[in-house]
């Protein structure tokens, strides 16, 4: 089992209602899962708990058999470096680094930098001619492709994508989505995709819906 959540609950300070209530789910390696739900239903929070970006108040989040709950900041940071890859809706590239340096960044942090792989990914994602540019010189679709390449360069075991095409037009979104799924499938990693788009959600093998902090 790649990822396992048991009775995970999360309440933000000052909030009267828990954003996540007793969530349980499993994900196998190579499995692709779409997570849908209304705004504020807790999708992003759930994704953050799975990626070790935040901690649950109760319950167990286990990745590759390792419980994330007792890990300290450094432990979770190491997990994010080596095991998890996150694609954000806002791309969140590092503006001070070139496209090439952005793509290689996480792989180098994880100690798994392979220049050939970076080149191949860049070519596959149509970024071969843009490696020396800075993120602000690229279009939105190009920036999201850089973010995907950065996530996949270190070959993470789990890819978490938070509305990765939310800022793109439909045609670009389709292209980026297809490329991402293809590349994730090649690595054998698990994928959890948070999306509002019914169209994209139906294209993945498995789908879960989150409503008011509970899976339906």
């Amino acid at each position, binding site marked *: 089992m790649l990822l396992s959540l048991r009775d995970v609950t999360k309440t*933000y300070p000052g909030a009267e209602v828990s954003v996540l209530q007793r969530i349980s789910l499993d994900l196998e390696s190579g499995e692709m899962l779409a997570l849908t739900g209304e*705004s504020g239903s807790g999708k*992003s929070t759930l994704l*953050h708990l799975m*990626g070790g*970006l*935040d*901690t649950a108040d109760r319950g167990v989040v286990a990745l590759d058999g390792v419980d994330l709950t007792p890990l300290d*900041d*450094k432990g979770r*940071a*190491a*997990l*994010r*470096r*080596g095991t998890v890859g*996150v694609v*954000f*809706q*806002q791309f*969140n*590239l*590092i*503006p*001070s*680094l070139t496209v090439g*340096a952005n793509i*290689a*960044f*996480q792989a*180098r*942090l*994880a100690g798994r*930098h392979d220049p050939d792989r970076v080149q191949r990914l860049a070519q596959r994602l149509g970024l071969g001619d843009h490696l020396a540019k800075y993120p602000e010189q690229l279009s939105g679709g190009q920036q999201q492709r850089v973010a995907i390449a*950065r996530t996949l360069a270190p070959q993470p075991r789990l890819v978490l994508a*938070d*509305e990765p095409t*939310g800022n793109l037009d439909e045609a670009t979104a389709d292209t980026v989505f297809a490329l991402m799924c293809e590349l994730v499938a090649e690595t054998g990693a698990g994928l959890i995709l948070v999306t509002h788009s019914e169209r994209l959600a139906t294209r993945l093998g498995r789908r879960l819906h989150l409503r008011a902090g509970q899976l339906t």
Partner: protein
Amino acid sequence: MTGPILVALLGHWRRNPLQLFTLLAGLALGTALWSGVQAINAEARASYDAAEATLGEGLFPQIVAGDGGSIPLATYVALRRAGWNVSPVIEGNLGPVRVVGVDPLTAPKGIGPVAVEGADLGAFLTGAGQIFAREEVLATLPDTGAALVITPAAAPNTALMDIGLADRLLGRQGRIDRLIVAQIQPSTRRPLAEVAPGLVQSAPQGDSNVARLTESFHLNLTAFGLLAFVVGLFIVHGAIGLAFEQRRPMVRTLRALGVPLGRLILLMALELAVLGLSAGLVGVALGYVVAAALLPDVAATLGGLYGADISGELTLRASWWLSGLAIALGGTGVAAAGSLLSLSRMPLLASAQPRAWVMARQGAGLAVLSLGLLVLSGGLAVWGHGLMVGFAMLGTLLVGGALALPPLLTLVLRLAEGRARDPVAQWFWADTRQQVPALSLALMALLLAMTANVGVSTMVSSFRLTFTGFLDQRLASELYVSARDAEQAAAIVAVAEPRTNAVLPILSVEAQVAGHPVEIYGARDHATYRDNWQLLRAAPGVWDALARGEGVLVNEQLYRRAGRDLGTAVRVAPGLDLPVLGIFGDYGNPVGQVIVNEAVFARQFPDVRALRFGLRLDPAAVDALRQTLRDQAGVADSAMVDQAAIKALSLSVFDRTFTVTTALNILTLAVAGFAMLMSLLTLAAMRLPQVAPVWALGLPRTRLAALDLLRAVVLAALTGALALPLGLGLAWALLAVVNVEAFGWRLPLYLFPMEYLRLGALALLAAVLAALWPAWRLSRMPPAQLLGVFRHER
């Protein structure tokens, strides 16, 4: 309409209290240092003015004895009978207090008790008399029987009384020190030379000697205060610029809703004026505290260096605090001018986003401007002349250097980024480079503070080194003795000659060379001069030629002012022109000096008798000789000064000077550190979008915080690396350009590497302290706050 607009505008400060605090504190600190220095200067000048009014120097012509001695009472009476409208003055020391005796019946208006309001002339003249002085001076006087009148406006350390009382207290037996010449004189009076051939009249000096002597010191203090104020203005400029940028969307909305641009600008200017005045008030109050803390050291410095009596107590003058408020208001105006101008030109439909890209584009322009200013500064240094050109050179050097900082930092950081192999290192350099525009104002403030520190400490230390070396040359004699009159002078020589290796008379007379006032000294040919005096420039065989009476030595001031280089002729007396054989350094002296051989001097000025002597003897025998001179020649202790005492006094004076400059150094650095702290705190909130992805990719918050600390150290170190040459340039400009133009002498520039290292460490400490809080906040930042960056609703 005004009310709602003000509510909208002021709401910005309510939501950004840190920005408001930065603005107010920056202005208050800058104003504090500026007005503190001004308070010290004003207090010193008031003391000089009080002394001038009390003693009549600078206001009226004076008549003194040509040989430097006293004037007999009979000569004074003869002058009055010959029609001269003159008034006698007796001066001397009673313990530590300077006693001045005047005759109120003949003194011109504005001198002595004539100027003291509420003075009772009858009581002043009759009976036991009255003594006017400050309260602390009166407290130190022995009981004289005279009534003591507290006079706060009196000159510091001076007691004023009737000439009869002064004569009794000082034991003068009717001898007068000088005569004050009233401005209106009867045209029928007989010539001075006919009535009193031994007396000479001098013109009023305009400024007192002390005021001129200390001008250099005050100029340096003012320069320091101004630099500190400019550093403060950098903070204010940054805060106002940021506030205006952040309010651009609101301004656009207000204008779209129908608020006229003119009204908006007026209200924003008004808002800034109120803030400026509030900060100014705090700054002036802080300035008073700074001045009160530093004044005793400044007073001791000026007293020791120049014999200037400065009151150690501060007076709250209206002109001072009003000018403090004015400069705070003016500074706010200067800092806000660019932002207000940009706002006035902003089209209604302009982008509401902060114009970071415009600022980036301006970076290239700044580099060109900085280069232009530095080239201009170099040009002024090479080809310029005059004091104003000297200051223009300093200004262009400092502003050009400050503007060069951001492009230079960017260049160095880009090079480091290119050489980095580790991904975190690569990100660190790239991210640091990206922060340069946002931090540039704070870094420029730090640069100016460090430059001022390097420049001023180099100048003061060079001055100390040169001056102590100069004292070693000039104070070669082990004991200096002053005689009351020619009779005592003869007694001194008689007592001293068998007990010393040499008795060197100090002969001098005032004269004019090429229209410049000079002192002509007669020097005996002796190893004391040959072995100790180091000449700045000299002809071959200078001492032998001087001994033969074939030429003169001139001081640097005369060489520069009158163009008397080696070989040019100096008119020592009518009909006697002698070539310049050598030029000597004469630091701190405002007037020119000419040294001729003793025999030449005696031929030209036969009436002048030596009343001062330098005695060469075994240092161990100094105390015994003092005792003998006291017993056998009646020389008062105050008329004998030994070399060691003068040197010890000079060094202690410099130590006090160092206390003042060190305090100003630390305060200026503290202001710059505060600028960095405020910039880093502002930046901490703005740069979360840059930090959050790196954290999400696996860099722990503690490491990010450590990198932030390291970044502050790196930026401060790079800024320090630029500040060092800039500070040395500043020191060179002060020593070699401004000093020469202002005072006629040039000081050599010495380097003090340990001092620079200590300063560098202090600046790094300031940077670390400034970065500590923002870094600590980052290390403790809840993940939810970092995750906020990734939320869709952002």
